[in-house]
């Protein structure tokens, strides 16, 4: 059972000050507890938490490759089954590993129905390698591989709807959450590990370095994303959306303005056309999930 006081990620890790994913890692393990095995993909969290021999993980932890965490977890789960063991098998992977390079392994693991919980810490780009776009990068965000320029307003595609894709695999429990609501993260992880079958949780984890804001504002930014409707917290049980976080919605402007990755939408002059497109994405979310109070 979830225990808020449980600390399974050690001090001394090398994340940036104010790191959203580092905060998320602590919350995830409060939700899943010490009887957990963590399977990590290559990524920012892997690198900041495990330079040999200084591991920050107090639970069994394994990293193999960038794209195979779900397959490695499948093997771990099968071995535990054969040995009659009961640890929770968790994947904790970034959005690049999840949305892009690892999606085949994830699809395979979910289709096979392994009893694992796959958690994506979504900081909306490849941060480990220096802020390149991923399938989770939001529309118009400027990254080093989708830079804003004279002929570009940044990333030209909307964010992939991965929770829906995994729900379509027959996942019994899919949830989104955000470090803006820490107790909600803990609760959802707890529920996922207690649900039999492959479960998926996507946690919004603002990255001060990648998005361009002050590390003291990590939680504030996460809240702003929810308040403007660009991030929606919900649970999907057996494919049906339940328990949506409802809000009094604000325009997207303030959220965008707070981050360097969207600065080109405001300088040298405000780009009303593009901001309207992003507002439309939030409006569609609001309609689709019924988030408006």
């Amino acid at each position: 059972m979830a225990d808020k006081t449980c600390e399974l990620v050690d001090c001394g890790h090398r994340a940036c000050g104010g790191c959203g994913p580092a905060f998320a890692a602590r919350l995830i393990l409060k939700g899943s507890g010490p009887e957990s095995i963590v399977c990590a993909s290559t990524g920012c969290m892997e690198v900041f938490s495990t330079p040999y021999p200084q591991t920050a993980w107090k639970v069994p932890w394994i990293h193999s490759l960038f794209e195979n965490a779900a397959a490695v977890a499948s093997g771990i789960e099968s071995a535990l089954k054969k040995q009659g063991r009961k640890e929770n098998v968790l994947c904790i992977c970034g959005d690049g590993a999840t949305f892009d390079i690892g999606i085949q392994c994830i699809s395979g693991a979910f289709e096979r129905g392994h009893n694992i919980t796959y958690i994506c810490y979504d900081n909306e780009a490849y941060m480990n390698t220096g802020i390149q776009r991923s399938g989770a990068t939001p529309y118009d965000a400027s990254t080093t591989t989708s830079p804003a320029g004279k002929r570009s307003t940044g990333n030209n595609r909307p964010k992939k709807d991965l929770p829906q894709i995994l729900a379509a695999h027959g996942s019994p429990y899919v949830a989104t959450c955000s470090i803006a609501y820490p107790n909600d993260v803990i609760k959802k992880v707890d529920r996922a590990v207690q649900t039999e079958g492959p479960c998926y949780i996507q946690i919004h984890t603002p990255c001060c370095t990648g998005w361009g804001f002050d590390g003291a504002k990590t939680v504030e930014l996460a809240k702003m994303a929810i308040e403007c409707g660009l991030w929606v917290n919900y649970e999907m049980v057996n494919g049906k959306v339940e328990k949506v976080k409802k809000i009094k919605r604000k325009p997207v402007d303030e959220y965008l303005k707070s981050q360097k990755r969207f600065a080109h939408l405001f300088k040298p002059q405000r780009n009303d056309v593009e901001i309207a497109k992003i507002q439309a994405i939030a409006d569609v979310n609001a309609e689709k999930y019924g988030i408006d109070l």
Partner: protein
Amino acid sequence: MKGILEGSHAAAEAAKLCRPDVVSAYPITPQTHIVERLAEMVADGELDSEYICVESEFSALSACLGASAAGSRVYSATSSQGLLLMTEVCFNVAGMRQPIVMSIANRAVGAPLSIWNDQQDSIALRDCGWIQIYAEDAQEIHDFHYIAYKVAEDHDVLLPVFICFDGFILSHTYEPVDMPTQAEVDAFLPPYKPYNMLDAKNPISMGMYATPEYYMEFRYEIDQAMVRSLDVIRRVGKEFGQKFGRDYSNLVEAYKLEDAEVAIVALGSVSGTIKDAIDEMRADGKKVGLLRLIVFRPFPAEDVKKALSGIKKVGVFEKNLSIGARMKGAVGYEVKDAVNDSSVSVLSYVAGLGGRDITIADIKKMVGEIEAGRGDCFLGLREELI
């Protein structure tokens, strides 16, 4: 019990008797019969393993890695493109020192697409840290599985093993195989005792990254383990011989080399055809012998040197092509280096690629070329096509 069975079933039956906790593999010609047979065994309750039917070879070996890290004995099998798709995981498994055993039904690598045999796939992965053993017949395919697990899991080694055998030529051929009983195998191969393992009661981190202060030493340690495995393979091969009557304490096999003037070096099933060719040539008064490399990684350089000592003309039969290399084949260099004698001619012959059949006549032709000092070339090209 002696029976007659297909080479791939000789692999599957041995894998079963090794009691793997987890099996994960993906179908690919000509390996498929192995995974089909194992799936059948699981379905019939003959084999009490978790069988993970994955979506790719990449996931097959990744799942094996996870299961092995969680403390289970695991098994997989593949060929060709499948092995290449696993390449990244292969390096990782060796680096993480997981004693996984995998059967390789050797097959050519595209393009052009070819389902037929050569050894390009496993030779291409020679540097990834897996022990590579090459079988000549179905009996060796079978026996090598027991030896492989015991060597891999030895705490002086802790390295994964490829058991390589020629696709179709061995995998699809029926021939006699003597199979031990489960009790005999259990007495030879004890239950798996992991060195590092994922366990909530004793948590550790595995597969951490190493900064420049540490990386080289980890790679050095893997190489040292590979070097140590030479003796461990000899020891385990000898022990196997004492228990089962088939001795595998030699990493190479010398056939009629003592008085040979010409030696052929080869890996795998073509060695049988070469032996028949040698018998015919010897009947005609030609002093030819064979050195078969049973183990290619670790490379048994001392054994090769010793076996070839006094022989001035050596030809290496290569079922691989190291594109752009002067000698053409990859194995020749290592034989030449092991011999380390400028008065000895060591030449490579690339042959049998993509399933091109090798006959006794081809071997005789190769010996003619070795004698004439013409080599580091392809053998048996269809001149009309080039």
